[in-house]
C-alpha cells in the first residue's frame, strides 16, 4: 500500500542531472523546499500570506545567511513558526536560506490575508511539557491491512459525473489511504504517534517533525480546502509501525482518554479486558515508552511497559 512521508532531503535530489551552476542549483533547491514547507504560511512568492512578507524592507529576525538558517532550523515558537531542524537536514535548511536571501529585495506587495497578530499555521506542534493532541484523519503510513480487522472495506465505485448527474462505470473511483478515527499526539521533535480509536491500537510513531495540515486546513487562516483528500502529511522520520494481529482478542471499544501531565492516557476495552495506555517520549529520540494496565474480567490487574524501538528501515521514508 502506498503512503506518504515527506522526504527529508529529497528536494536536493529533484534537480540532480539539471545543468545549472552550483549557486543557482542551491537556490533552486531552496525554492523547492520553500514551496513545500514555507509557502503555506509565507505565500508562494514569499510575499506573505499568514506569516510575514519576506521580500520587503522590514526584516524581523535577521538578514544574514547564518541568521536566516538559524531561524529556519529553530523556528519562532512565539509566532508559531515550527522548528524545521527536525524535518530538513542542514544542507536543505541552508539552501532554503539561500533562496530566502535571493527574494529579500524583490519588494513584492504584501499578500497577508490574516490579522497581523494571528499565529495560526497549518504546522501545529507541541512539546514534551505541553503535548499537542489532534483528532483528525491520518495516513496509514504503510501499516498493513492485518492491523485493521475491525474496519469496513472501502471499495471502488463508479465515478460520479457532476455535470451529467450520472455514474460512469468505466471510470471507477478507488478509495484512498487513510485512518478515519485517529488520535495523533506530538511531543515536539522527540516523538509523535498515531493511535487508532477503532482498533484501539497504537499504529505508528515518528520523530523530527509533526504534520503538515495544509491539505485539511488550507494555507493560512480560514483557508479553502486544497485537495480531493483531507489526509495530512506526516513530517519527520518514521520510527515504529504496528504489524501483525493485535495482542488481545476481542472487539475493541474506545472509551476515551484522560490527561496525565498533558499527555493522553487512553482507556478502552478489548473483549473482556479493560486497558489503559499512556505513551511518552523516552530518553532516546523517537523511541516511545508505553505504559499499559490490563484488567481482566475477574478484576485482576497487571501493569507493564515497553519501548518501541525503530522497526522501520530509514530509507523507507
Amino acid at each position, binding site marked *: *500500500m502506498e503512503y506518504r512521508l515527506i522526504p527529508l532531503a529529497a528536494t536536493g535530489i529533484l534537480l540532480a542531472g539539471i545543468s545549472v551552476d552550483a549557486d543557482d542549483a542551491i537556490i533552486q533547491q531552496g525554492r523547492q523546499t520553500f514551496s513545500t514547507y514555507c509557502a503555506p504560511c509565507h505565500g508562494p512568492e514569499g510575499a506573505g500570506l499568514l506569516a510575514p512578507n519576506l521580500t520587503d524592507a522590514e526584516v524581523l529576525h535577521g538578514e544574514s545567511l547564518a541568521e536566516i538558517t538559524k531561524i529556519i532550523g529553530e523556528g519562532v515558537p512565539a509566532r*508559531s513558526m515550527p522548528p524545521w531542524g527536525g524535518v530538513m537536514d542542514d544542507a536543505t535548511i541552508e539552501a532554503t536560506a539561500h533562496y530566502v536571501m535571493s527574494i529579500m529585495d524583490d519588494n513584492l506587495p504584501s499578500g497577508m490575508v490574516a*490579522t497581523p*497578530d*494571528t*499565529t*495560526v499555521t497549518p504546522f*501545529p506542534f507541541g512539546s514534551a511539557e505541553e503535548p*499537542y*493532541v*489532534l*483528532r*483528525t*484523519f491520518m495516513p*496509514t503510513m504503510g501499516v498493513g*491491512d492485518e492491523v*485493521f480487522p475491525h*474496519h*469496513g*472495506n*472501502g*471499495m471502488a*465505485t*463508479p465515478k*460520479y459525473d*457532476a455535470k451529467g*448527474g450520472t*455514474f460512469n462505470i468505466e471510470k471507477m*473511483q478507488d*478509495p*484512498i*489511504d*487513510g*485512518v*478515519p*478515527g485517529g488520535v495523533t499526539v506530538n511531543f515536539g521533535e522527540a516523538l509523535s504517534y498515531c493511535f487508532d*480509536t*477503532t482498533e484501539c491500537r497504537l499504529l505508528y510513531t515518528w520523530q523530527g517533525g509533526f504534520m503538515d*495540515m495544509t491539505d*485539511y*486546513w*488550507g494555507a493560512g*487562516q*480560514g*483557508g*479553502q*480546502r486544497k485537495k*480531493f*483528500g*483531507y*489526509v495530512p502529511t506526516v513530517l519527520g522520520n518514521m520510527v515504529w509501525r504496528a504489524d501483525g494481529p493485535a495482542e488481545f482478542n476481542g472487539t475493541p471499544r*474506545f*472509551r*476515551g*482518554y*484522560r*490527561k496525565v501531565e498533558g499527555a*493522553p492516557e487512553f482507556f478502552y476495552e478489548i473483549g473482556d479486558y479493560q486497558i489503559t495506555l499512556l505513551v511518552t517520549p523516552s530518553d532516546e529520540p523517537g523511541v516511545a515508552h508505553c505504559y499499559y494496565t490490563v484488567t481482566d474480567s475477574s478484576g485482576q490487574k497487571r501493569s507493564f511497559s515497553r519501548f518501541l524501538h525503530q522497526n522501520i528501515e530509514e530509507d523507507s521514508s
Partner: protein
Amino acid sequence: MNRRKIINGLLILALATGLNAESYRVEAINMPGDVAPEVGDLDFTPEGELVVSLRRHGILMAKPNANPAAFDWRVFAADSLHNPTGLDVVSGSEVLVSQMQELTRITDTDGDGVADLYENVADDWGVTGNYHESIAITRDGGDGWYLAIGTASHNGPTFYHTRGEFAPYGRTGRNFAAGPWKGWIVHADAEGNITPFAKGFRAHNGIIRDPQGRIWATDNQGDWRGTSPLYHVEKDNFYGHPSSLIWDKNFTTNVFKDPLQLYIDDWDAYEAHRTPAAVEFPHGLMSNSPSEPIVIPTGNAFGPFAGQMLVGDIAGPRITRVMVEEVSGVMQGACVTLISGDIGGGNNRLVFSPDDSQLYVGQTFRGWTRNSADGLKRVSYTGETPFEMQNISITKTGFRLTFTKPVDESTLSRLSHYKAQSYWYKSHHNYGSPQMDVTELSVTSAQVSADGRTVNLTIPGIQPKRIVQFDLGEGLVAADGSTIGNPTICYTVRKLR
C-alpha cells in the same frame, strides 16, 4: 472641502433622513490570534460564559463583554477536535461535543479551568474518510440527544479502511451514504446507544428541539434538494435524499437493494414516499446554505418576533426569519430576511445571550463560498421596532398578513402594494432546480383590521405544493413613515385550509 466631499456629505444626509432607524446592530467579536476562528458551534454555560468550538482547534470560553474587542478568552479544551460542529454545554467544567467520529464528554475534573478528561459517549456510526460527514446535535428534552449525521460529498474520497460497514450502493451519487447512518437523524441515549429516528437528509447542518418539543432540521440545496428546506422532523419519516435508505434494511430487503437508482428511475414513487419541507428557502433569495435554526425567546428583548425561528446562511450574508403554523395536520410557513449585509456570510451557528437581547453568530465557510467570513458576530436589538411583516397565515381565501406597525387603511388596502407569484422546485437527482411553473397570482381584495396592522388578502388559485412569493410595494409605508424593511416573503404551501 472639495466637490466630491460635498456630494458625499449631501448623500449621507439624505440617507440619514430617508432610512428607518437601526433596529439591529452588528458587531464583530475579537477572538484570540492563536486560533483559526472557524466556529463549529456556540452555546452558553449556565453561569453566562460563551462557549465556542472551533473546527481546527478545541473549545474556548469567555464572559461576554460590552466591548467586542475585550472578551477575555480562556482555553477550556486545548486538544484539536475533529470538526466539532455540535455543542451541548452542561456547565463551565463539562461540555458535550459532536465530532466527526464521536460524541465526546469533555470535563475539567481538577478545577484548573482546562479539560483533562475526554470520554467517548457515543460513536456507533460510520466514518468513511470523507470531509463532508459533519454532525449537528440537539438535546432530546431529557438526557439524550438527536444527532444529524451528514452525507459525504463526491468532491472527496472514502478510505480503504472505513469505520463501520461500507455499502457500495450507498457510495454512488453526488452526496452519498457509504457508512452507517449518513443522511439520518439518530437518537443517542445517555449511555450512548444509537437508534435511528428519521432518514432522507443530505447536509442537514442544523437541528433543534423547540420549546414545544418539535424537532426541526435545515438542509442544503443540491441533489434531491431543489432548493434549501427546513423540515419538521417526525420519527421514521423519509425526507427525500434516497442515499440514506441504504441503511434502512426494511427498504433494501423489501423494496429494492439500490434505493438511489430506484428513485432516479421512478420519480413518482419517490414523490409518494418523501415528506416535503415545512418551509423552503428560494435559492439566491432567502438562503443558499441554511444552517442552525434557533427559536427567538419569549418577550421583546430581540424585537417583535418572539417564538419565530431564525436561520443562518453560510453561503450568503443574511439571517432569515421563519414563521410556521399547523395547517390540516402538517407544519408549513414562510421565510423572510431579517438581517443582511454587514453580518457577512458563513453564518453557521446561532445562540442568544442569557438575557435574550443579543444573538451571537458563529461563522465558518471552508470550501463552500468565497464571499463569507470566519469568526464571531453579535447582533443586538436596539429597541427600535422595525417595520416588517410580523406574521403570515394562510386562510381559506388567501393570506392574512400582520405588520409590526400600524398602517393607514388607505395604504394597507391598496391592491397594487401586493405582488404575488407562485412556483415550485423539483427535488430530483440533478443539482438544485429552476423555479417551475412560475405563475402570477392576482390579489382581488384587501380587508384591513381595525388596528391597521393586519390585512386579509383574497387570492384565487392558490395550490398546494407551491411557494407563494409576495413582493410588497415601496409605497407600503407605516403610519409613522417608516418603509418596509424586507418586502419579499415566501410562504410554502403544503396544504390548503
